[in-house]
């Protein structure tokens, strides 16, 4: 595989996220305290089913309402976006999600209320956001399952470094619905067990969580930068990975050159599945020897397409605070010695790798550093 060419470092002018704990600072505080947002709730919401680990923002249960339950939290998140002519050619918006408003289609099937259909298609969902937040027409929409946010960040960087934009608003969100929870439950990886990322145990399990985040990216000098970005798609199967971990290694290789000589910590994907968790932990241990590896999905659940940007916002908050949360919900033995179960000081580190994976053996990673 030839090296992936990356644009120059991209400045992070502003960043914010929203989880069931609140904003980035509130979420970081909760993670550092070892709190779990996940709780066992019926997999199909009001329609019942097995109780599985879900972490919901702003609502006690997974109901599909009108307006959709994601609208309120997204309004709250958007209130923190710096002013700008967002959606204009020089300040485009890059929106990413895996599921957009697809939960509205499930709601429609239940009660046949046509009001739900207005949010069901990705473009309709984003049209709603455009109107709500006053964005112009230059809104790019990308959807690559659980690496969606990373793909959007790379596109945003390219727009900036091609000189086509001065600032780009990257906006990502995914809210759990019976559609999504039912789908992961059918794959049997969402079950009654709480996730324990990177823990070597009998059976794997994940949790799902609501998440949303934004970043304002620029070429101008900023305190934090995205120094390298890499993507790789194995295309071996929809839900499996190459057994030798080569897909994880190929993606890590894409940021390794820029990371060379730095003391790193790694925020891995770490959903709680066994095989992918083992391959990921082993690949990062080889690519970044000695770098502590953490996952926060044992607390927040997997926030799907938004996870790359949500967890980037949390990583920046962690570095600012001087402490990174450990891998909540997991206990020894783990797949690699590098798995950090407890919070640790970020002093002495000068970079963090933020990684995500998706269906199709899709891998994404970025390197976060100070400028």
């Amino acid at each position, binding site marked *: *595989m*030839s090296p*992936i*060419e990356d644009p120059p470092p991209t400045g992070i002018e502003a960043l914010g996220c929203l989880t069931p704990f609140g904003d980035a600072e509130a979420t970081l505080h909760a993670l550092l305290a070892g709190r779990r947002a996940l709780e066992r709730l019926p997999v*199909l919401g009001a*329609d019942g089913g097995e109780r599985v680990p879900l972490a919901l923002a702003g609502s006690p249960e997974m109901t599909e309402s009108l307006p959709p339950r994601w609208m309120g939290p997204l309004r709250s998140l958007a209130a923190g976006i710096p002013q700008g002519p967002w959606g204009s*050619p*020089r300040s*485009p918006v890059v929106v990413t999600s*895996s599921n957009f408003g*697809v939960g509205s*289609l*499930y709601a429609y*099937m239940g009660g046949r209320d*046509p009001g739900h*259909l207005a949010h069901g*298609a*990705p*473009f309709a969902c*984003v*049209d709603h956001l455009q109107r709500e937040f006053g964005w112009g*027409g*230059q*809104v*790019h*929409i*990308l*959807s*690559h*399952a659980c690496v969606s946010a990373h*793909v959007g960040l*790379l*596109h945003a960087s*390219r*727009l900036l470094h091609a*000189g*086509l934009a001065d600032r780009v608003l990257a906006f990502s969100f995914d809210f759990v619905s*019976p*559609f999504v929870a*039912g*789908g*992961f*439950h*059918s*794959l*049997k990886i969402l079950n009654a067990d709480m996730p324990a990322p990177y823990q070597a145990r009998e059976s794997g399990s994940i949790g799902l969580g609501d998440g949303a985040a934004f970043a304002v990216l620029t070429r101008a000098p900023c305190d934090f930068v995205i120094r390298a970005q890499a*993507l*790789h*798609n*194995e*295309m*071996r*199967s*929809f*839900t499996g990975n190459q057994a030798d971990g080569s897909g994880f290694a*190929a993606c890590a290789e894409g940021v390794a050159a820029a990371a060379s000589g730095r003391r790193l910590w790694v925020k891995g994907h770490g959903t709680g599945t066994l095989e992918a968790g083992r391959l990921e932990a082993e690949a990062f241990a080889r690519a970044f020897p000695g770098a502590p590896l953490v996952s926060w999905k044992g607390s927040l659940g997997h926030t799907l397409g938004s996870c790359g940007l949500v967890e980037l916002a949390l990583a920046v908050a962690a570095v600012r605070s001087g402490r990174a949360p450990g891998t909540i919900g997991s206990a020894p033995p783990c797949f690699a010695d590098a798995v950090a179960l407890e919070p640790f000081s970020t002093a002495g580190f000068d970079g963090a790798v933020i990684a995500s994976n998706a*269906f*199709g*053996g*899709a891998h994404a990673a970025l390197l976060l550093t100070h400028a």
Partner: protein
Amino acid sequence: MPERSIQFMRLERPHPGEQAAAARVRLADKFPRTALRRMTHLGLLTGAALDGVPVGEDDAVVYASTYAETRALEDFLGTFPAASPLLFQTSIHPSAVQQVLIGRQQSVGRYWPITGRRRLVESALLVALLETAPRVVLACGEERGSWLLEKGMASDRAFALALVLTQDPSGALGRVRFTAGGAPDETCPSLPDFADAVGERRGLSWSGAGGEWSLDWS
């Protein structure tokens, strides 16, 4: 802003009434048997458009669809409360190209699944022009919906388009060009209009994303 040359083009337009089952029979020789039975109509059409087009590790793939896996979505919703794992996997937006490349067991560095409606074509071409890979495979398409179509939330026609875009102009069928400038956005061609124009080798031009776009043929 570099332009890209069109080195290959194929438009797959099935009979208007064709369903996935009929497409599986018609296109059976183009796919591994194990993959064929799980493929959606859009996956089959995309694979047919890409038939004979090698996709390498160092290529980038750009995929554009407004509605993507409509039938898998409709059928998946119909399986509740016993949700189907297969339909869940195939209902995701990037699925069509993934079905094809998984069938080929072909990894690829960068895969860009794009959606949207009003400026979808422009977004996809912008990603293709910004790519650093020398060779970009652009795949676009839709499948015809059933009940979602009745609600105005699905495509009324099925098609798939494949273009191979390179930086080498020699022997090109045509080119896609973007010239940065200050022109205000005009109406961007819809995905079906873009596919028709490519199929007819008809030129297109519009302004958007802060510049002028053109599709020209040799």
